[in-house]
């Protein structure tokens, strides 16, 4: 086994806004920084680099911001370790990677985790059919790859992403056949005042609305997908009304023929690394779920471990940038590169910025929050765990057989044991368990994090070896 590369003061996991800004900030303050991401370019999801078109050819503000930050990163002294899958993170702080050249190991005294979030999709019968995809997947197709769903496609879910995707595709001449919005107009109006603090975003939002209105897309407010139908692919869906809490209510159902659906119900923080390392966790419903407990600088309960960005609570890209600045400064300070005075001075502005942005991010996070009543409305035979085909009734049966926490639930049913490692089903499965026992989410807990952080082939871990070189420990006693 090769010995770890130890020439960094800090390793940053995740090259989205939070990771990029923290890496640049830490490097500007004298730290040797390694920035690790699985993608071949920095940007994360929100600033995902346009791939299909030339970078200059794309017009969205996110693309401009992303390109600007990618330029700053290129000019910085940050070492970019891209195209590498993180499979293990262990104590103080060893990171094992798998890249095109095989396995690599890095070690540094400081670790900033900025691995973002994944999408929450509230299951409905047929959501596993090919052609049903996540809303975030739609934004990736739109922003990075210039791909539109086929003509009759349906857009469903909740939050600003819904409007952004609808408007983005409408402008390209590929509007959805219908928009199914869990929110009603009153929810959108309630979020308006928070936009006042962000004139740029307000303008962008108005632009979205105009695009949607002018393309005359039918919008079903306070509706959700009841089911998707099809054989080997979605061919139709049925939508029905919901109340303000997202609960299915009586009312006319509408069938829509379609051959694709993009659906998303918000984001869940991807907190696996801090969890794996044993950092204290807290459940914050309004921030998307379980997150590491952090101070305003992203310091977790473990020394020199920082968690920032959507993986530390859903707050969006702008807050991620200020959080990145704060964590980069904190790492520099904690490593002794800047003194307390400089730290206080430099972080004051970012802290103020952070506070200013929070009104908007709170409003958006509220819009995409989990609606327990929507989970309660999931039908019994609906698949919750896609990997293992575990249904709601399987989970309920396990709860009634005595599973009280999510790890027991996993043991009883295999829910979350498949290759996605519970990322797609975890939030909803935990909610179902909590509701079944009338417990709060804290009480039912979270999946224990396990390596590898993403599945990797055994072949890729092996490297070249001779049998004689395997460091076999001494034989077990006879």
């Amino acid at each position, binding site marked *: 086994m090769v010995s770890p590369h130890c020439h960094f003061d800090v390793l940053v996991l995740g090259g989205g806004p939070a990771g990029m800004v923290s890496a640049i900030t830490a490097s500007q303050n004298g730290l040797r920084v390694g920035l690790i991401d*699985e993608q*071949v370019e920095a940007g994360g*999801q929100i600033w995902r680099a346009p*791939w*299909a*078109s*030339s970078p200059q050819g794309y017009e969205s503000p996110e693309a401009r911001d992303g390109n600007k930050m990618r330029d700053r990163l290129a000019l910085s002294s940050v070492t970019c370790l891209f195209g590498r899958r993180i499979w293990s993170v262990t104590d103080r702080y060893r990171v094992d990677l798998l890249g095109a050249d095989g396995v690599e190991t890095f070690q540094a005294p400081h670790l900033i985790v900025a691995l973002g979030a*994944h*999408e929450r999709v509230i299951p409905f019968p047929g959501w*596993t*059919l*090919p*052609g*049903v*995809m*996540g809303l*975030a*997947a739609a934004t*990736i*197709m739109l922003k990075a*790859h*210039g*791909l*539109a*769903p*086929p*003509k009759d496609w349906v857009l469903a879910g909740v939050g600003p992403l819904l409007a952004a995707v609808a408007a983005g595709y409408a402008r*390209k*001449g*590929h509007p959805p056949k219908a928009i199914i919005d869990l929110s009603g107009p009153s929810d959108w109006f309630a979020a308006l005042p928070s936009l006042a603090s962000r004139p740029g975003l307000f303008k962008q939002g108005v632009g979205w609305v105009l695009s949607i209105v002018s393309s005359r897309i039918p919008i079903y407010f306070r509706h959700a997908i009841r089911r998707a139908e099809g*054989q*080997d*692919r979605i061919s139709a869906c049925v939508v029905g009304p919901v109340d303000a809490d997202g609960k299915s209510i009586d009312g006319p159902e509408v069938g829509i023929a379609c*051959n*694709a659906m993009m659906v998303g119900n918000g984001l869940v923080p991807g907190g696996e690394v801090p969890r794996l390392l044993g950092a204290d966790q807290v459940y914050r419903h309004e921030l998307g779920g379980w997150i590491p407990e952090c101070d305003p600088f992203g310091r977790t309960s473990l020394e020199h471990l920082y968690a920032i960005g959507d993986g530390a609570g859903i707050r969006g890209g702008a807050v991620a940038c200020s959080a990145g600045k704060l964590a980069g400064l904190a790492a520099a300070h904690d490593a002794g590169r800047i003194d307390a005075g400089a730290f206080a001075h430099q972080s004051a502005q970012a802290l103020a910025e952070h506070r200013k942005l929070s009104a908007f991010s709170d409003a958006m996070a509220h819009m995409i929050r989990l609606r327990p009543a929507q989970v309660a409305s999931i039908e019994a035979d609906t*698949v919750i765990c*896609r*990997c*293992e*085909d575990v249904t709601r009734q399987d989970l309920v049966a396990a709860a009634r057989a005595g599973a009280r926490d999510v790890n027991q639930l996993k043991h009883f049913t295999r829910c979350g044991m*498949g*290759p*996605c490692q519970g*990322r*797609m089903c975890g939030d909803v499965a935990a909610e179902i368990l909590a509701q079944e026992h009338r417990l709060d989410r804290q009480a039912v807990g979270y999946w224990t994090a396990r390596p590898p952080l*993403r*599945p990797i*082939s055994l*072949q890729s871990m092996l490297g070249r070896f001779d049998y004689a070189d395997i460091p076999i420990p001494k034989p077990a006693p006879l």
Partner: protein
Amino acid sequence: MVSAFTRIVASHHALVHINVDGVDCVAPAGEPLATSLLAAGYVMLRHSPNRHNPRGAFCLMGVCQECAIHVDGQIVQACMTPVRAGMVVQLRGAV
């Protein structure tokens, strides 16, 4: 194909040939394979191992594992695998 996903941006990347279940296809070199497959009309990619239900790409960001299929004999996530000339793709999962 009527129901294929549509390219709406002219790509400046070179087109290469790949083989999908024995059928020759062209795709931009370097594009995530999952995207190329959608554009080529391959929406169903595999079946779930437990109940053998049809599945296709879902998250496109490396999380959901629904697009984990055989490429050159290895299981890979199509959304995280750039297209290379001559790639042999089999639309079946680990089982």
